[in-house]
């Protein structure tokens, strides 16, 4: 017994190291279900409050840009309104039913924390479950996609940025509807990779890439970006494509969170037919 105590005493530093490092590694590797350890994340109330304060100061530096973006968006929306009235008039004359069912609801949110320089980037939004946010909702800006919501607390939401190795988004080429999978390989925050498009499809630099509805998260035809390079590796059946994001992910201040009202229905149906096999 005495020897044991002496042994511990001699190696106390080693044991302190092992315990602390073990705790850190435990945190590191349990991060995928860290709702359990939700207090260590920026959904945390205190961290959120501090970021809100700092962010409200930083917002002043972006006022000019934000105003310009809002003005552009207002103009776009006005155009949409006029054409919408037109369409409604037409429909009332020809079709006699309420054939349109609302599928997507847009919720505005303020970005209170953001990063683009790590391998795995996250954003924090100033809205939470009290505003109806859940996990796995789409997050976009007025000119492109941003990511998918992950953890939600009553007042804050953390968003898995598209600039994260966990994020993979189903995307399509707008002009011919061929679809592939979009992900980020690290490095430049303006460029992503699009895979799984076969080489017989005619493509050109500058083609528009948009979302599709396969994952039941994003609405159809939300802009992602444009093809910035189109290459084929010798002997490969698929293109090596890079996409330049249309949204500048470094200076976003306001985003929309999109709630798909029919998501459960689509998911349940797809699961049912897969299980029936």
């Amino acid at each position, binding site marked *: 017994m005495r020897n044991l105590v002496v042994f511990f005493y001699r190696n*106390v*530093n080693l044991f*302190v*190291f092992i315990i*602390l*490092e073990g*705790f*850190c*590694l*435990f*945190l*590191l*590797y*349990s*991060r995928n279900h*860290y709702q359990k*350890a939700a207090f*260590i*994340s*920026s959904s*945390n109330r205190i*961290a959120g409050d*501090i*970021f809100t304060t*700092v962010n409200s100061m930083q917002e002043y530096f972006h006022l000019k840009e934000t105003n310009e973006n809002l003005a552009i968006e207002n103009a776009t929306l006005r155009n949409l309104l006029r054409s919408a009235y037109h369409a409604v008039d037409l429909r009332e004359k020809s079709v006699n039913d309420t054939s349109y069912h609302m599928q997507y609801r847009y919720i505005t949110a303020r970005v209170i*924390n953001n*990063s*683009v*320089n*790590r*391998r*795995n980037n*996250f954003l*924090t939004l100033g809205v939470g479950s009290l505003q109806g946010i859940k996990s796995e909702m789409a997050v976009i800006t007025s000119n492109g996609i941003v990511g998918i919501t992950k953890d939600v607390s009553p007042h804050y939401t*953390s968003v898995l940025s598209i600039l994260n190795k966990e994020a993979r988004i189903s995307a399509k080429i707008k002009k011919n509807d061929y679809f592939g999978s979009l992900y980020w*390989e*690290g*490095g*430049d*925050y*303006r460029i992503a990779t699009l895979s799984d498009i076969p080489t017989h499809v005619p493509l050109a630099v500058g083609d528009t890439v948009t979302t599709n509805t396969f994952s039941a998260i994003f609405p159809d035809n939300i802009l992602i970006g444009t093809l910035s390079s189109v290459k084929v590796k010798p002997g490969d059946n698929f293109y090596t494509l890079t996409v330049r994001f249309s949204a500048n992910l*470094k200076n976003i201040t306001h985003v929309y969170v999109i709630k798909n009202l029919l998501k459960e229905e689509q998911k349940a149906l797809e699961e049912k037919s897969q299980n029936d096999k």
Partner: protein
Amino acid sequence: MISDLISNTLRFAILLVLQLFVFNNIQFSGYINPMVYILFVMMLPFETPVWLVLFSSFLLGTLLDIFCDTPGLHGTSVVLLAFLRKFVLNLFSPRDGYESNTSPTLYQLGFGWYIWYASIMVLIHHLTFFLLEAHRFAELHKTLFRSLASGLLTLVFALLYQYLIYRPGSAKS
């Protein structure tokens, strides 16, 4: 002793705030993220007991992790650095050991000594950090480039800190 305690506690707080609100926002070409907060671990006095170095680094790393949304990442790499600090110091120790009541700083041990010490410490921390962050070997060259580039910038800030902010008179007394 007491003044050492106060100056190191102050350094802890200042480096934490600077790291969160200044250095984490430096985004050179989207890759480079200097981590100047490890200066706290590097500048603790020679006589600081190892368990205290470990606990204070653990606290610093965990606080950073809470704010950066990276559970365990900063913690793991800075605790490892704290543990290896003693061995790095022994590696570079002068023939008759370090003088008592001093800290590993540029003023007390000279430029040549400091640049070696700082490079090894920065390299240990940055390699651990970026390898754990990427957590795959497929992007090894990218990860190594990030560690080296960020490390170089951290080193520059460490030297600037030694020349501009650190006052040798206040720490000696």
